[in-house]
């Protein structure tokens, strides 16, 4: 880019053009969210003005209204509870399997591995009707536990794919040394491999967190008003027409987004390999 053949005038034009394109990109992708953040900070009168208001004194009244009504808090609590449990249970179930697949050769290893990839690819709606029937029969319908089990199952592929890569990068010698000292397989796993694969486990945890937190379709079908998560509550706002409380919709939306955005920015470097389900193993956001 810094070739001497360019005159400074041409270089100037180039920079103007590139930054204009970058800023266009930023506006396209962030303005919609910032506008809704703005809506959440407006009074009802300020929201329903034509033309829309671009400068105003922000108010938190929508947030107070949302947080003082019971519905949002119940759903938010359900979301928190279900998401946290999903992360913990799926790590507990998934990491030993990932370790076994990374370290040991056993019959069915490849089959399990690729079945897990397929599981990630299946459209959830295709499994939800029979799951609904089954849950109704065993009494798991409308329970948080049922939802946690479903999310855990759909998290497992991500957990296994991501942590397997990290377990494979842990040198085998360390575990061999532990065996020489008399450690059991479980001991070597818990005391050596697990601590060393910590970055991978963090990534896997946050990917499973995103899956559970952002999901709508499972919760829409498997929960009722008492156990529904925030996206399900939010979807009920969609049916109504313009007369509805936009301020409350915007404020609840922003409250649901905040934790996700904070979490994903913390693990940004590992998001791409995780989201591609290991299809791109080494891709990190540079």
């Amino acid at each position: 880019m810094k070739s001497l053949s360019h005159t400074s005038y041409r270089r100037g034009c180039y920079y103007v053009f590139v930054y204009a394109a970058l800023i266009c990109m930023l506006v396209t992708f962030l303005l919609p969210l910032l506008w809704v953040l703005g809506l959440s900070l407006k009074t009802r009168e300020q929201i329903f003005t034509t033309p829309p208001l671009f400068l105003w004194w922000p108010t938190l009244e929508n947030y107070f209204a949302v947080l003082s009504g019971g519905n949002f808090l119940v759903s938010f609590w359900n979301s928190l509870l279900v998401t946290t449990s999903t992360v913990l249970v799926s790590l507990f179930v998934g990491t030993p399997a990932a370790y076994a697949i990374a370290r040991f050769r056993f019959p069915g290893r490849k089959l399990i591995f690729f079945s897990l990839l397929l599981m990630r690819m299946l459209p959830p709606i295709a499994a939800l009707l029979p799951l609904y029937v089954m849950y109704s029969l065993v009494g798991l319908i409308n329970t948080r536990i049922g939802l946690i089990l479903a999310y855990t199952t759909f998290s497992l592929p991500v957990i296994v794919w991501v942590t397997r890569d990290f377990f494979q990068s842990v040198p085998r010698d360390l575990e061999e040394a532990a065996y020489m000292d008399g450690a059991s397989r479980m001991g070597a796993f818990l005391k050596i491999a697990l601590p060393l694969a910590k970055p991978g486990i963090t990534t896997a945890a946050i990917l499973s967190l995103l899956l559970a937190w952002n999901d709508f379709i499972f919760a829409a079908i498997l929960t009722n008003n008492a156990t529904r998560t925030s996206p399900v509550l939010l979807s009920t706002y969609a049916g109504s027409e313009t007369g509805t409380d936009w301020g409350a919709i915007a404020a609840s939306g922003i409250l649901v987004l905040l934790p996700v955005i904070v979490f994903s920015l913390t693990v940004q470097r590992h998001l791409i390999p995780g989201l591609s389900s290991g299809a791109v193993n080494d891709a990190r956001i540079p």
Partner: protein
Amino acid sequence: MSHDDRHPERLVSPPGSGVRRLTTAGLVSKTADLFFVPLAILPTVALSIAVLGFPLILSLIMSFVAWSIDQPVSEAQFVGLRNYRDLFADPVFLASLGLTLGYTAATVCLEILLGLAIALLLNLELPFIRFFRTALIVPMMVTPIVAALCWKLLLDPTYGLVDHLIGSPVIWLGDPTLALITVGGVSVWQNAPFVALLILAGLQSVPKEVMEAARIDGATKIALFRHITLPLLSPYLLVAMLLRIIFEFRAFDNVYVMTAGGPGNATLVLSIFVYNTSFFSFDLTLASAASWIMLLIVLIVSLLLIATKRPKETD
């Protein structure tokens, strides 16, 4: 698993030492080692079978029987492919299948093209470029329901920002053709950043020395892109494309919130079709057959994805 929490140190001699002290703890530890792999795998396999495998088999069986929800299960009759034949005779299903394939093709193409353009832009080494790369993570992480809801407010014909900016009241979600384009557009908005960042990772893996050497040899920028960047990038593009096909094909959240399949059946994608058939018409056998058609299509694309040589093999 509790017996492993104790430290069976020095009770088992190192392998190959020839001395084996047969203490009880040593035996327990050895037995536990034998069972380690099965125990580690079991919960994952069991949960997958219970929550996914079993329902899928149930659904496969249901797709081959005639049964309605108010009948006892014992009256279900095997009818072979009749549900599938009914499905392919149903104009609503056929329209939904065609619409979903078109929607998938269009959104994926746009996501790849837009993603590639953004990735090339973000690949430039410029001041503050990291800020732009990080900012792009936000839309792809946003809860899809919230994104759809935000866009619903933005696209409101009376008070929405978009119609104000373009200066005419366009009814984005009320017009049959426009509704599908709009719903797809929201998905492109949310997922193009993912494609861009995936392709950017690919661009960063293009060795700088090769580019430099070709440039010194007098290759033009277009030639560099065609003959060096694109071939090295193609596995990333392929993975991005197949993944996006799989995820756009199951589109549900954005459609459900913005149009719920309407107006009429203008945005009735397959997921919504299955949802309505299952939970509104309660036609469980027909819904199961439709589910399995979806599954088969996804299976083919997934097998292609697995068969694709991954950009870099780790094992």
